[in-house]
Structures are given as structure tokens and as C-alpha cells.
């Protein structure tokens, strides 16, 4: 049997949808692990990226640091914190925030730094204060790339929240880790399929968000200007 038949059989077994630790509960737990780290990473990453993009100060350093930052293995950090802190919120929160920050900073930075210099000059020439230049001109133009950064971060976090189960937490990883431990491929495949579906749902959500908030003229640029 292939991956899909295993996954399909497991997902469509009604017993898996009822009781404690059922599929709906673990999906909710998984989303719980996703939202908070993203919020925190956005609160740190967006202002920082925008500030660097606006001033141009520290750009080379941050851009290079962000790449090395990606090297931090989330599983290792998670386990290290688990050994010291046990089951505290910080144990899963810190690794996921660490994971989500680089794509948010890089894209916020690129979005703002990439604003046409003529447009920036025009904003300045109209007598806008630096704050007005950022909030009224640079941020709206940077919005498509900002969304790309948030989307990438969300996908990373949804994918990686899976391994929170390794230290005994809930979420869709529960099925994968438990299944692997007991050599039962059904829940492993089913859990993996659900994580993929969740990630694709995130893509769709951001596509809709893009349509809602980004001005038409900027959309094309966002589609082609993808950076991770």
C-alpha cells in the first residue's frame, strides 16, 4: 500500500475523530502552537526589518546573520529547553519564534529597502516626517513582500510544530511520533497528510489575504519578487 492509501484509511476511520486526543483536538492544539510564536516573531521581526530597510544601517550584518540563524536546529533547541524548563510554555515558544524570525525580518527589510528611491524622494519632498514616510509610503509598498515573509514563517512554524510532540506535547506531531515509536505507519501517514493539508491551507489563506490587502498594481511584483 502507498502513503496515500495508508493516510486515507487512517484519516477516514471515524474512531480517530472522537474522544480525547482525536484529530480535531490535535488540529486545534497544533494551531495553538502556531499562532503565538508567529505573533511574537512578527512583533520583533517587522519593526526590525522595516527599521533596517528604512535607514540602511546594519543591513549587511543582519542579512548575513539571518542566514546563519537558519542553521539553528529547532529540534535541538526544543530538546535543550525541555531538559532545563520541562513543559513550560517557553520550551516550545522560543524555538518556534527563533524559526519564524529570519523570513519575516529579511522580507520586511527587502520590501522597504526595495522601494523606488524616486518614490522615497517624493514622499520627503512633500514634507512627510520620517514616520509618515514609513507608514504611508514605504510600508504599503512593502506589503506584498511582508506577506511573503509572514507566509514563509507560518509554513515553517506549522511544519515544525510537529516536532513539539517529541518532547511529549500535543499537536498533529503526536500521531507521527507515536506512530513511529510503535511502528504503526497508519497514524504516521495520516498525521503527515494533515500537516501538509494545513500548510496548503496556509498558502490559500495568504493568497486570499494578498487579494484583500494588497493594491492591484503591487500584486504582480509580489508574485515574481519572492525571496525566502
Amino acid at each position, binding site marked *: 500500500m502507498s502513503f496515500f492509501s495508508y493516510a486515507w484509511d487512517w484519516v477516514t476511520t471515524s474512531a480517530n475523530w472522537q474522544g480525547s486526543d482525536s484529530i480535531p483536538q490535535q488540529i486545534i492544539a497544533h494551531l495553538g502552537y502556531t499562532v503565538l510564536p508567529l505573533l511574537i516573531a512578527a512583533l520583533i521581526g517587522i519593526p526590525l526589518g522595516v527599521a533596517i530597510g528604512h535607514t540602511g544601517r546594519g543591513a*549587511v550584518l543582519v542579512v548575513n546573520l539571518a542566514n546563519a540563524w537558519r*542553521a*539553528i536546529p529547532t529540534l*535541538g533547541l526544543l*530538546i535543550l529547553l525541555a531538559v532545563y524548563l520541562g513543559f513550560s510554555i517557553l520550551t516550545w515558544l522560543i524555538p518556534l519564534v527563533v524559526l519564524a524570525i529570519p523570513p519575516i525580518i529579511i522580507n520586511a527589510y527587502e520590501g522597504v529597502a526595495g522601494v523606488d*528611491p524616486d518614490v522615497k524622494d517624493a514622499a520627503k519632498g512633500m514634507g512627510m516626517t520620517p514616520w509618515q514616510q514609513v507608514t504611508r509610503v514605504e510600508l504599503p509598498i512593502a506589503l506584498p513582500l511582508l506577506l511573503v515573509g509572514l507566509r514563509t514563517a507560518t509554513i515553517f512554524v506549522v511544519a515544525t510544530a510537529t*516536532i513539539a510532540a517529541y518532547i511529549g506535547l500535543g499537536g498533529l506531531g503526536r500521531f507521527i511520533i507515536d506512530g513511529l515509536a510503535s511502528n504503526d505507519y497508519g497514524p504516521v501517514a495520516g498525521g503527515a497528510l494533515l500537516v501538509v493539508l494545513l*500548510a496548503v491551507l496556509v498558502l490559500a489563506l495568504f493568497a486570499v489575504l494578498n487579494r484583500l490587502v494588497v493594491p492591484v498594481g503591487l500584486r504582480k511584483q509580489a508574485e515574481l519578487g519572492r525571496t525566502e
Partner: protein
Amino acid sequence: MIWSWIPQNWSLIWQLTWENAKLGVLSALYGLIISLPLGIIAARWRWVYPPTLAVVNVVYAVPSLALWIALIPAFGLTDTTVIIGLTAFSLCVILPNVVEGLRAVPAPVRQAATAMGYGATRRLVMVELPLAAPVIIGGLRVGVVASISLASLGQLIGVSSLGYLFIDGLQRSFPTEIYVGLVCVIVLAVICDLLLVGVRRVLTPWQPRRQVALAQWPGLQRVALRRGAA
């Protein structure tokens, strides 16, 4: 931190580091090898790119662990499973950079090459690819760093990597082992990253150093070129 643990387990650490490096570096290289022809096609025939990018975005969203799990029935709990999954991931990072890099070659440069009698293939190899190299290598850097880091997850499906030190460290509640694993993964990734910076300097000696630092990033490269043209 129990320092004496490190020399006592030197051969284990070395072996795991080597295995982790092999998984990560091979995946990034395969990703590059597949990206180059695909990217060249997508840069030349523009209509190919949007659908390719859509597929790439979806594949990129598939978690590595989930992809490995899907590959288990075909390839088992082996290096092959891990490498195929990570190759798909690196491909998604590198391919857009190949296309962006080739497209960013200024039209006058291309026309000059043609006027000098370069055919399409020679122009691609001698002019366009070298000019796109910084952007392509920028993508490769992200690919190799992420692959090395993700390869440590391979241990979850039983494929030997530095992730072993995390898992064993957790089971024994032994932080030293976890620290060693973390440091090894990060150092390994940073070394590969720096090696690629070196490769880029060798391949593109015409670029002034400061501009090179900026040109590693595709967006900046685009910006730099756009500003240069204006």
C-alpha cells in the same frame, strides 16, 4: 557542561557530523543540479515560470518530515529518503534564484554578447551564468544551511545524523550532548556558508567587495541592478 564527554566521544561526534554533512550538502548540490536546467528553461520561456513557481511554492510548503514519511514505503528508513526530501526543499529555494539571476542580466550586456558573435549556448555559459552566479550562490547558501539543519531531523525516522545527540541527550537528560549537537550543526552550516562565499569570490572576481556583500541577496541584487540601470 561536562567537557570530558567530548574527547571521550570524539569518534561518535565526528561520524555523526560527517553523516549530517553528507545528507545536507548532497541535497543542496542535487537541488542546484536540478535547478540549473529548469531555471534556464524558465528564464528563457517566460510562460513556463508562473506555473513552475506555483508548484515550487506548494512543494516548499510540504514539511520535510511529512515528505520523508510519504517516501518511506518506496525507499524505507534510508539516506535516500532524507536526501530526496531535502533535495526537493533546496530546489524550491534555489530555482527562483536561478531564474531571477538570469533575468537580471541587463539586456545591453546580452546584446553586446550577441553582437560579438556569441551563440545562445556560448552566451549563456560565458556571460549570463557568470553574471547570475552571485544570485544563484545566494540561493544555494540558504539551501545548504537549511538542509544541514533539517538533516538533523532525519534521526526521527532513524537516519543517522547529529539529531542523534539531541535525542540521546533528552533520553539521558544530559545537556552536554545536546549542546555539542547544536554547536556541531551550526558550525557545520556556517562553514559551508562561508565556503560558498569563497566560491563566489573566486567565480566573480570583478565584483567589488562591498557590493558583493550586498549582492548575495536576490532582492538586493535586483535593487542594485535596477538602480544601476536607472
